[in-house]
């Protein structure tokens, strides 16, 4: 049993709105070969991509599964970013789906919330969604070098994390990702959104067995220090979650949001093929 300070955590409401997709007047973005592409998949309600579905292969870019919510007020939007944790409960607070329940599955430029397909049919862009945020400030009392980021107590309890005889934190993940494939998002802190895998070199993904990742997969990024920034460090381990789909843009790819991080080797990733929040949280 992992000892945490979960009895001391605050449960706090924050609300945002189902976002609207937006495009620039000129819709083209160059792909890795410089070909202009029109990118679809971010914001709004994505009806046919959900956690558990492939992160690769969509005719879309940075596909955000299910519902993406945001708040127009800069401060409130950041509070939503910084307080929400994967596994937090979401409740529809206006419109035809009033009262429907969902779950936070990640954080991109907007907050990502999963709702069942029947609820998606009722939701409208602009509907208000309340998140019961809980998890910020959580500590693993016996592992002070491991920082918990945006992991709800509920997810932590159901993840299947164990402590080894050598006192390492054994964390189930579907794959290990080498540091040299981590790209866009290096300029941000690990408290804010995600860092993309760089998928411009397709053969390299196959070589490392990470070409079939799914949305919601829990993964380890090796030799990184994501305690207070996103950088390379020999021996450090970052556990993340794949939150959005692949991209055609250079330096981009599926997004990996920081969940449990350590600059030393306290975390021991354990390859577990079904380490995906769709199953762990009973989403679908």
């Amino acid at each position, binding site marked *: 049993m992992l000892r945490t300070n979960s009895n001391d955590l605050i449960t706090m409401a924050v609300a945002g709105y189902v976002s609207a997709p937006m495009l620039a007047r000129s819709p083209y973005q*160059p*792909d*890795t*070969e*410089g070909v202009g592409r029109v990118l679809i998949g971010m914001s709004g309600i994505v009806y046919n991509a959900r956690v558990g579905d492939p992160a690769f292969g969509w005719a879309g870019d940075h596909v955000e599964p299910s519902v993406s919510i945001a708040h127009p007020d800069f401060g409130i939007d950041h509070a939503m970013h910084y307080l929400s944790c994967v596994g937090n409960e979401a409740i529809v607070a206006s419109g035809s789906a009033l009262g429907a329940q969902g779950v936070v599955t990640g954080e991109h430029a907007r907050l990502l919330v999963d709702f069942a397909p029947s609820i998606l049919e009722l939701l409208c862009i602009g509907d208000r969604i309340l998140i019961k945020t809980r998890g910020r400030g959580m500590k693993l009392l016996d592992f002070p070098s491991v920082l918990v980021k945006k992991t709800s107590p509920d997810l932590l309890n159901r993840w299947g994390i164990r402590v080894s005889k050598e006192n390492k934190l054994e964390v189930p993940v579907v794959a290990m990702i080498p*540091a*040299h*494939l*981590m*790209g*866009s*998002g*290096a*300029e941000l*802190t690990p408290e804010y959104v995600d860092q*993309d895998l*760089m998928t*411009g*070199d397709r*053969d*390299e993904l196959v070589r490392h067995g990470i070409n079939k990742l799914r949305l919601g997969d829990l993964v380890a990024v090796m*030799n990184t*220090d*994501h*305690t*207070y*920034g*996103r*950088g*390379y*460090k*020999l021996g450090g381990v970052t556990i993340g979650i794949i939150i959005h789909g692949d991209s055609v*843009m*250079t*330096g*981009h790819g599926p997004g990996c949001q920081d969940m449990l991080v350590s*600059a030393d080797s306290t975390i021991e990733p354990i390859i577990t093929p079904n380490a995906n929040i769709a199953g762990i949280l009973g989403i679908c």
Partner: protein
Amino acid sequence: MLKTNIEQLVKISVLGEIANPTMPGLPASPYIVSANGEPILVPSFGSIVYNIALGDRALGWAGELIQPGVSIKAGENANTALGVYACLGNRARVMNGPASGAIGFVTGKSGRFAEHVICHFESDAMDKMAPGDKVQIQGHGVGLQLVDFPKIQFKSCSPKLLEALDLKPVGDLKVSIPVKGIVPSVLAGAGAGLGSENGALNLQTSDPGLFSKCGLDDLCFGDIVAIADWDSRYGHGYLRQAMTIGVVCQGGSFRSGYGPGVVVIMTSKDDLIQPIVSSGSNIKQLLE
């Protein structure tokens, strides 16, 4: 001399103002957080930096991503044009104030969170300048190509710098270039996934061991470096065989994922650029 398309290039004005430094507003927490979680308060991007110039050491300053000399910025979309059109080696001229008429040249660019163009001026000219003074650049270099090596892309590189780079043909397909060092792609940090026409790519120093092993501890502003397995044609990202050449224009960093910033001047998808490690590859010597 390798043949270029210089006669096709457009030379065009872009104007910026010397940028004041900025700090976060209320609740007035001015700290950045270092790689090991310490709050740090030091000068950062922008303004006039009097005591650090092109050619000086890039690391070890009590500053965060310090930009030597004079940093300029324009408003919104005009700043994008300033950032893209300005090429290393382009002439910069002060257009008003007591330093009016002083001539310098472009030495670098910074990316997301600052978006400045960095210029070198002589000390006596900088003494007469103030934030807000207008600096105009004669943008010249966008579209530059080597006629016989069309798969090598140039960006932020003036014809003047290209001429000084000492590029040499290696067979029919490749060119060689003297560089200070060759950086493995795993050290390319902040800037990955962002634009490669008008920003910097930061070489990570959060694992000092590997940085040191690459012979980069004595890196200086203006040094030319190669980044292996790195494709900066349309943004920045990992690609085996690709090669990117950049010029150091921002100083070291206390943060994880950051370190000295380089502005990219050459890049190719295939193995067409052959960097040759040499001690004298700094744009200060090449341009002065």
